[in-house]
């Protein structure tokens, strides 16, 4: 019972940004911002977890932007620990950051820390994930990417490819993490009502090595039934592909593999026809986030929420370099 009622809260939150982006304008488009105002400022960037290539690309884009605009970047890494991230934020406020850019680990847990920042009039910009709370109260503005949307895209392309009918295996990420929950929920909701059955739903903790072993075991049990594999990230997709090959099936023919994030490796295997698709938003939040800071600095009004375009990469468009 208690499990049930809890379901709603985060779900609603996940929808929130999707609604916003209807009227949202992309900061890049509304060009002519004077970036020089940022010179000599101190900007704090709180990264929630530098443990995977997507996050690292995100961090690097921040560092690059700081370099470019002569900003002093204070950068903390919570290594996937919400408690540490809260502490990190308070530390950055304490050492007098002028702006905070935050990539939240979870939608809940940073409220107190954000509050204290806003109380000290330090503008807060959330990137890639929102938090439960009001813009203007807990944060100034946010640049969202929509994890649920990504999962839905993966579901869509699998549905199309299989003609709406088939057996699916899922490799889940770390249990209890919001990213995992979103990517699972989005997918399950999307295949709701189709004739597609999830015949295997196992955990591989976002780890390639683990994914390969888990997939090998799944295939051993019911290899012939499985038509597609949905992985919560592309590292696991790589592992799955390896396992599929080892088990004597042809990825992209007998079994379709779909992942999320879109690093080079994924793009390559998409072009090679081994991976069906990868959905991702660009991790390069540096530029847009800094532009927002500049806008605020120069007194322009900013919207409560912007959306960073997500893309579904398939054979047709995978030749681009997602930048990591």
């Amino acid at each position, binding site marked *: 019972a*208690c*499990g*049930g009622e*809890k*379901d709603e*809260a*985060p779900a609603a939150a996940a929808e929130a940004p999707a609604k916003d982006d209807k009227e949202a304008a992309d900061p890049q488009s509304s060009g002519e911002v004077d970036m020089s105002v940022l010179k000599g400022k101190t900007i*704090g960037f709180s990264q929630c977890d*530098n*443990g995977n290539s997507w996050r690292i690309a995100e*961090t690097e884009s921040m560092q690059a932007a700081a370099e470019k605009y002569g900003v002093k*970047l*204070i*950068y*903390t*890494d919570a*290594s*996937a*620990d*919400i*408690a*540490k991230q*809260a*502490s*990190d934020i*308070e*530390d*950055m*406020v*304490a*050492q*007098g950051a002028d702006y905070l850019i935050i990539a939240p680990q*979870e*939608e*809940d*847990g*940073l*409220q*107190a820390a954000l509050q204290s920042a806003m109380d000290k009039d330090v503008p807060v910009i959330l990137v890639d994930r929102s938090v*439960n709370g009001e813009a203007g109260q807990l944060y100034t503005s946010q640049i969202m990417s929509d994890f649920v949307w990504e999962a839905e895209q993966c579901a869509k392309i699998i549905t199309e490819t299989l003609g709406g009918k088939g057996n699916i295996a899922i490799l889940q990420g*770390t*249990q*209890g*993490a*919001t990213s*995992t*929950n979103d990517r699972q929920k989005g997918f399950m909701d999307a295949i709701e009502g189709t004739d597609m059955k999830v015949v295997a739903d196992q955990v591989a903790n976002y780890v390639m090595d683990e994914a390969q072993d888990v997939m090998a075991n799944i295939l051993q049990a019911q290899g012939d039934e499985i038509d597609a594999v949905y992985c919560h990230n592309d590292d696991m997709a790589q592992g799955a592909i390896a396992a599929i090959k080892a088990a004597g099936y042809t990825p992209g023919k007998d079994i379709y593999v779909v992942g999320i994030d879109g690093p080079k490796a994924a793009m390559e295997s998409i072009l090679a026809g081994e991976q069906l698709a990868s959905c991702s938003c660009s991790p390069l939040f540096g530029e847009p986030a800094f532009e927002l800071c500049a806008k605020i600095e120069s007194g322009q009004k900013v919207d409560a929420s912007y959306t960073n375009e997500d893309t579904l990469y398939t054979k047709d468009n995978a030749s681009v370099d997602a930048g990591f």
Partner: protein
Amino acid sequence: MNKAKNIYQWFSSKSSIAAFLILFIFSSIVFSGRSFASFDSIANLFRKAASDGGFLALGMTFVILIAQIDLSVGAVMALGGVIMAMFGAQNPILGIVLGLLAGIFCGFLNGFMVAKMRISSWVATLATMLGVRGIVLLMTNKKPVSVSNDALIALGNTKIFGINILVYFLVIATLICMHLSHNTKFGMGIYAVGGNEEAAKMMGLKVDKIKILCYVMCGFFAALAGMLLANRLYTAQPTAGDTWETTAIAMCALGGIKLSGGEGKFSGTFFGILVIATINTIFNFAGNLNSWWQNIIMGLLVLISIGVQSDVLKIGKGKKHTWKQEEAA
């Protein structure tokens, strides 16, 4: 020669305090430009000590003093937080009580397996860690449980004289532990069991009872830590405390608690906690350290401070080594 020895003696006995002061002064100077020594950042430092693992370390100290280990504290922490959040929504008291009971129960379970079933603490608590984490995920359906009750939130975020209430809790808890360990039969028993279990048995101590009690204390503090963290963060995460057991152990080790049992003081643990908090603050002030650099530095610091505490460096020539001889567990 003798002088050097004395320095070691002093250093190793007070090493956690020393380490803390050294680090603190060092960083105050290095980051003087960025107000490291400011009230805010110091307040943060202490709050960090209290909210990020401090209570776990206190609990872990009980267990380590009896030459055992508890890998389940992280999971138990999550359990405590989640239970409190679920039942605390309507009635905070109920939530807190149930949360603590859950922690005490897990502790008892560990203690029972170690003392009565004679299962190595490594395995027993590893199993508890797996099992409890699984249960937490089941209870929460893998989703965070938000803490809405104001009373609870206040318990994690109120500030007294500008210092977070958690800090006061930690200090009080430490004092209580120091009292328990120094002024009570239980305390004496802990050191006896840790120092020489067989002897303790033959002197008529209730060894099993002491062991179980120590684990209960550990479970209690783990749950407490989880609840306070949940309050502070407005949410109980099913993943809370993941891998925090290592942090807690490191805090104890830095505090001079010998993992071979029977040696060490809670005051030491307290400063061990502060040392870790300081190191983390330094990382944040450095402001450009990736987690891997942090890992390397953390690893080195632990190695060094443990090396300094080494008996061998202390031991004067001719005095017999105090090797610990373990009994089959």
